[in-house]
């Protein structure tokens, strides 16, 4: 008897009770967006207290500033959802950007960009294999791997800065050029990539598996999911995100070097978690990572625009992060 299609021979006498009242449903919806409430509160505060915040040019800047952390946060979110950390993100970023520039020197700009992305994917694959095969906790496995990658970056560049050829310099800056609606090309790319990853995670069978593996590894395994492949795939996605972020940074700087974006992997994880993705895996969403990244950028941007004494900046930044995450948390708990 195939259950999928067949109707039960003898349906149970009672049907399950009415499926949730609309009232409670709305509550569920609302509580899920606590972090957005916090974000909007900060946006309103900034709009009221400065006259430069809500300008078109500032919005363009803000989005542009958000791209790097945003991409890394999207990659970190995929990994965290599947129950692993990726501490190699910023090292992968540096190596891919360097590889991109080196390849560019012997070919041309588009090929170089492509090479960087391929390098990112490959590095992600290697990271994933190390984590899966060694069976070590991903935190420490990726920490060690990131040290190796940084080392590779140093070896490849001999500790120097690498540049594209003089004739390529101009096109290499393409990601900083204005594009659709005046947004920078980097922003446009960021939006496209993030939407693609968001759809991948929320609508595909792969996405479902990611959540299952992160939520309960054993249950996922017993459901016939190849847990190892899912993790490797998550690292590959994260690697590609890192490579794209690296290209943006390199394009802005006109060069690449082994120390690029040191420490950015932590900011990325922070963004993911601030957005409301559970650090234990299995719960969260890509948009949350992006919102987290946006929030972090916003706090910095707002400060710069307000022109307050930077000595208090850190204290206030920390407080704002606590405020945002606590708001989120409380809204969620209230309806428990």
């Amino acid at each position, binding site marked *: 008897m195939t259950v999928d299609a067949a109707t039960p021979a003898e349906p149970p006498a009672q049907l399950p009770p009415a499926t949730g009242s609309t009232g409670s449903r709305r509550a569920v919806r609302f509580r899920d967006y606590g972090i957005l409430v916090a974000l909007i509160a900060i946006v309103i505060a900034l709009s009221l207290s400065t006259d430069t915040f809500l300008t078109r040019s500032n919005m363009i800047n803000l989005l542009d500033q958000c791209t790097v952390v945003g991409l890394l946060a999207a990659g970190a979110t995929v990994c965290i959802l599947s129950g692993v950390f990726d501490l190699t993100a910023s090292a992968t970023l540096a190596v891919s950007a360097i590889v991109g520039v080196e390849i560019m020197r012997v070919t041309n700009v588009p090929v170089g960009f492509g090479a960087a992305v391929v390098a990112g994917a490959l590095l992600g694959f290697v990271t994933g294999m190390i984590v899966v095969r060694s069976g070590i906790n991903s935190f420490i496995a990726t920490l060690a791997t990131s040290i190796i990658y940084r080392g590779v970056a140093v070896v490849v560049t001999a500790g120097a800065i690498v540049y594209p050829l003089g004739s390529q310099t101009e096109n290499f800056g393409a990601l900083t050029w204005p594009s659709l609606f005046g947004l920078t090309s980097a922003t446009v790319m960021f939006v496209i990539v993030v939407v693609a990853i968001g759809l991948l995670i929320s609508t595909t069978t792969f996405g479902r598996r990611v959540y*299952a593996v992160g939520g309960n590894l054993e249950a996922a395994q017993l459901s016939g999911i190849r847990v190892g492949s899912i993790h490797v795939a998550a690292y590959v996605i994260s690697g590609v995100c890192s490579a794209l972020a690296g290209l943006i940074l390199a394009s802005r700087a006109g060069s690449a070097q082994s120390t690029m974006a040191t420490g950015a992997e932590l900011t990325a994880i922070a963004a993911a978690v601030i957005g409301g993705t559970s650090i234990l895996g299995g719960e969260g969403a890509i948009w949350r990572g992006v919102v987290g990244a946006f929030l972090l950028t916003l706090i910095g941007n707002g400060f710069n625009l307000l022109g307050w004494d930077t000595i208090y900046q850190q204290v206030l930044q920390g407080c704002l992060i606590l405020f945002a995450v606590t708001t989120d948390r409380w809204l969620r708990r209230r309806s428990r």
Partner: protein
Amino acid sequence: MSTTAPSISVRGVGKSYSGVTVLRDVDLDIAPGEVHGLVGENGAGKSTLLKILGGVVRADHGTLSFDGEQVTFARPRDAIAQGVSLISQEGALVPALTVLENVFLGRWAQTAGVRRAGHDRKRFDELIELTGFEVDPRARVDLLPTGVQQQVEILRSLARGARVLAMDEPTAVLSEHEKDNLIALIRRLADSGTTILLVSHFLDEVLAVADRITVLRDGALVTTDDAATQTPRTLVRQMVGREIDMLYSTPDPIPDDAPTVLSARGLRRGPVQGVDLEVRAGEILGLAGLVGSGRSETLRLLFGADHATEGTVDVDGATLTRLSPRRAMAAGIAFVPESRKEQGLVMARSVSENVALSSLPRRRVGPVVRRSAERTAVDTVSRLVDIRAAAKDAPVETLSGGNQQKALFAKWLLCSPRILLVDEPTRGVDIAAKSHIHHLITELARDGMAVVCVSSEIEELLALSHRVLVLRHGRPVGEFPRGTAKEVVIAAAFGDEGEPT
């Protein structure tokens, strides 16, 4: 806190979760030293009521009094201080710690803060003597079979020397022998003045041990009555609100030409010491044994969840090489594991996601999940096993224990397997749903599915299976046809006829 049991009175207690009422105005009085049974369908609110008494959940309204004095339980600590000890349905062990540590969790013997393990060990031995359980105090609990874990929980409650013992389905995965031990123990404790609240879906058991029984339905209290005035039939009527047929469904005879679908030869690994078995299409094979006899481990080997160190698994006569859950599934095997929390469900994800998980590839366009097909499939199968959830997109952890079990079963039905391995399929499931699941299994077998079923409830096995294979210390020690007397099977599981050769 005095040492004698209090008289408890519950007044107007209600609880709702995001708008859905799960307990409404419950009034209940429990006398000191009473054994009070609590029965009801899955999702009736039994666990919720117990959790309120144990300080785990706060009631939205209503009061609780002990010996006429109102008490507020804001956290488990407060309840413990009043002498209440709760064995929760989902289990609450610290996986990486040993049995000894878990039994005395939070109550370790100490001198000036320094732990005295020796002292605890002595008390542990006393408890073992009292209960007749067989548990190694040095074993890590996460490596123990579920049945033994359950015993650890029971030992812990006893170690606290509680005045009020609230047990949520303590016997769900205990085999007959341990079950009987526990029932006797409950009686003895009650006689020595401990109040006991017992939630169970085994109505016989409740009727046998309880002084009074309360029936809950849809969160409301239906009756509280002397056990002597009740029978299983009256209880069911009060629980469900109508008469239902509680007879076990009988499997159809296996056609003579039914081929052998699944067979295993000389399976070995850890506790499994050489298991041979054969199942034909349309056949239901029951696996019986004591707690820890290696039944679950045998199923895991058949499914490739663990790798056998020796032995082979054949499907349709062909040996499955490099067996893994994926390969097993590809060969048409489905496996309903015994622990829904650890091995079965992704607790934080929704009911529908969980139910759909193992059959995802069946409903997709390219890589994208076909949501509407998924909704239809999940709805159909949930109705089939009668899952009652506030919403299909609610996290599965918000379901009552029995409904979680049904979701787990539903998940594997959606794979339309040819071979079904089920471990404790009716653990924590109410009596109506249980006969429903039995009905389902026999129906699936009639359509040609081969079923291997592990259950600690021998009666269930004997009624459901064509054959029952008894395991002892990881070896098959006997095979019995339908209709064999329960005692005979228990004796075999026990090894009363001497060590197997």
